[in-house]
């Protein structure tokens, strides 16, 4: 089968990226008209970062962790506390007051994001010591537990003067331009791709494939698992920070276990072990939920009020679609492959061949 050469690949990718950037620019300059699609795209981009970070663990290192929500919470609270304007803080902490050293502490957005990532990574480093000695499901259970502990801590009364307890934080200044969120997301994903493509990334893959063999190839299992876990936590923390800036108000309920399951769903839908799959998955998931909103509105056809069409019905439809996808694409939309123009090209060729064959068989049928 004919394939595209490298140059054609680059050109096609560049064209796609160019179109995406132009569309985003256009939407951003007419923000008033396009605020709704922009919000969906922003959320998708933020979820894409967590999804790729989770894929780095689950799909590339073979560690099944369910601690995403907890690490996102660390990043989100760090960014929120550091970026809420100092003069607005008394209003935000109006019940319990704010702890003294934090009252004046503030940082620019980028520094707050990096710090949030670093704090999440440090937490991952500490949790990694006991947890990474566990395997498969047990690791998932342990990380899930830690994630809930982090959330409970944030909501605990003794941290009221830091996290504002169960009242949450508001008045977080949003992104000054929506393009920043896309840029940060793209940068994070690019950095993770670089890690995966390096020699360390190959060692991660070896651990996923066969731990015993990887160890007998001189790969220190614990060190490399710890490395993957900390990197993943770092980017999870950053995306949590971005989520806080995007939502502009957060509380501990934002980071319940449901958030982790959303991310897991994205990773599974896109394909475990596929970065482009995770990105595609996060856009489809986030956008899909919104597109299906018309199922929530009552539908009246010729005076007849169709039953079932009421608030919440879209989630039923959404679940049905997900089940269909999982049934027909067992390994997710992209499996463990990456998106490539060659793949699309081959798909189109197969399609045209099938159409030709059908035509031929029809013509043969006429002759009879």
């Amino acid at each position: 089968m004919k394939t595209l050469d490298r140059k054609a690949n680059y050109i096609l990718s560049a064209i796609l990226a160019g179109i995406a950037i132009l569309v985003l620019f256009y939407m951003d300059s007419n923000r008033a008209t396009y605020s709704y699609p922009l919000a969906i795209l922003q959320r998708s981009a933020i979820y894409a970062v967590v999804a790729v970070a989770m894929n780095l663990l689950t799909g590339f290192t073979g560690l099944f962790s369910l601690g995403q929500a907890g690490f996102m919470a660390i990043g989100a609270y760090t960014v929120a506390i550091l970026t809420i304007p100092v003069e607005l803080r008394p209003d935000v902490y109006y019940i319990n007051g704010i702890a003294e050293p934090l009252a004046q502490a503030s940082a620019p957005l980028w520094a707050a994001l990096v710090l949030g990532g670093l704090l999440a990574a440090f937490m991952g480093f500490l949790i990694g010591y006991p947890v990474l000695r566990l395997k498969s499901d047990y690791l998932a259970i342990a990380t899930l537990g830690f994630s809930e502990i982090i959330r409970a801590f944030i909501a605990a009364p003794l941290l009221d003067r830091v996290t504002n307890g169960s009242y949450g934080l508001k008045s977080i200044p949003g992104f000054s331009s929506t393009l920043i969120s896309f840029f940060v997301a793209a940068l994070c994903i690019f950095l993770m791709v670089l890690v995966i493509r390096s020699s360390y990334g190959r060692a991660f893959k070896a651990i996923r494939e066969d731990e015993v063999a990887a160890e007998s190839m001189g790969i220190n299992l614990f060190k490399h698992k710890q490395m993957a876990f900390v990197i993943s936590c770092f980017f999870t923390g950053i995306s949590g920070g971005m989520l806080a800036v995007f939502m502009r108000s957060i509380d501990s309920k934002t980071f319940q276990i449901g958030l982790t399951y959303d991310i897991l769903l994205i990773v599974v839908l896109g394909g475990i072990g596929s970065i482009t799959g995770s990105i595609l998955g996060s856009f489809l998931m986030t956008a899909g939920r919104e597109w299906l909103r018309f199922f929530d509105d009552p539908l009246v056809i010729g005076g007849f009020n169709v039953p079932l069409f009421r608030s919440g019905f879209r989630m039923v439809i959404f679940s049905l679609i997900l089940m269909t996808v999982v049934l027909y694409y067992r390994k997710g939309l992209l499996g463990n492959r990456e998106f490539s123009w060659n793949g699309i090209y081959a798909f189109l060729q197969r399609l045209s061949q099938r159409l030709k064959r059908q035509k031929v068989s029809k013509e043969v049928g006429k002759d009879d």
Partner: protein
Amino acid sequence: MTETVLKLNDITMQFGGVVAVNGFSMEVNRGEIVAIIGPNGAGKTTAFNVITGVYAPTNGSVELHGETIISNYPQGKMRKLYAGENNGVYEQLIRKTPDKITKLGIARTFQNIRLFKNLTVFENVLIAKHMNIQSNLLSAAFMLNRKEEQKMRRETDELLNILDLSDVRNEISSSLPYGKQRRLEIARALATEPSLLLLDEPAAGMNPQETNELTRFIHRLKDDFHLTVLMIEHHMNLVMEISDRIYVLDFGKLIASGTPEDVQNDQRVIDAYLGVTEDEQ
């Protein structure tokens, strides 16, 4: 002057109440091909797993180039349960994880092939080169270690050339025919630049012609890479033809050792093991 590469001293491996290997001592000298044989369940693979650090022995020690790399004595629960010999002789506790032992120069293959199944032949061997990486995560991620990376790739390609695997370089390893998978596993082990190669049943599942090829292949490897080889094997033809010395295990105990002729004429070995092959002929 013969130089001892590997020395096992009274290795005992006990799982609960089962003594899998009992007071096993052996030596492998530089440039030798030594075989461990024995009926199923005799403890051969267990001995391999002790040498490579997968299991910590219950009692005994392992020396590599005269330096003790593994040493243990019955502890905890085992103090009461211990059913082996030489209790109290060893007092040191030295444990090393398999990756550290690989770095010391012992490489192994597995009885049931353990390749990185979804990766290509090239990647399989390249991963073994990660062991000696000098650059840290950041410089590797930002491709600042281009020289090192290129060296790793070049060495991998050279190795694939030597082992006649260049033609399948970009194939997924699990799609290779069985014989080539075995050879790839050896290539991967050689990529760690070992001085001692442990082969766990390299001829398992091979037909006579492939076995003959393997005999020549192992000889060639030994000379080209200045290796010392320790292997477990069931194919008597291969073992008798290739080995300088043979150790025979039965129910975890060493029952005979020496040159192939000595072992073949040993009545206990014939009783335990070789009688089976006579029936087949």
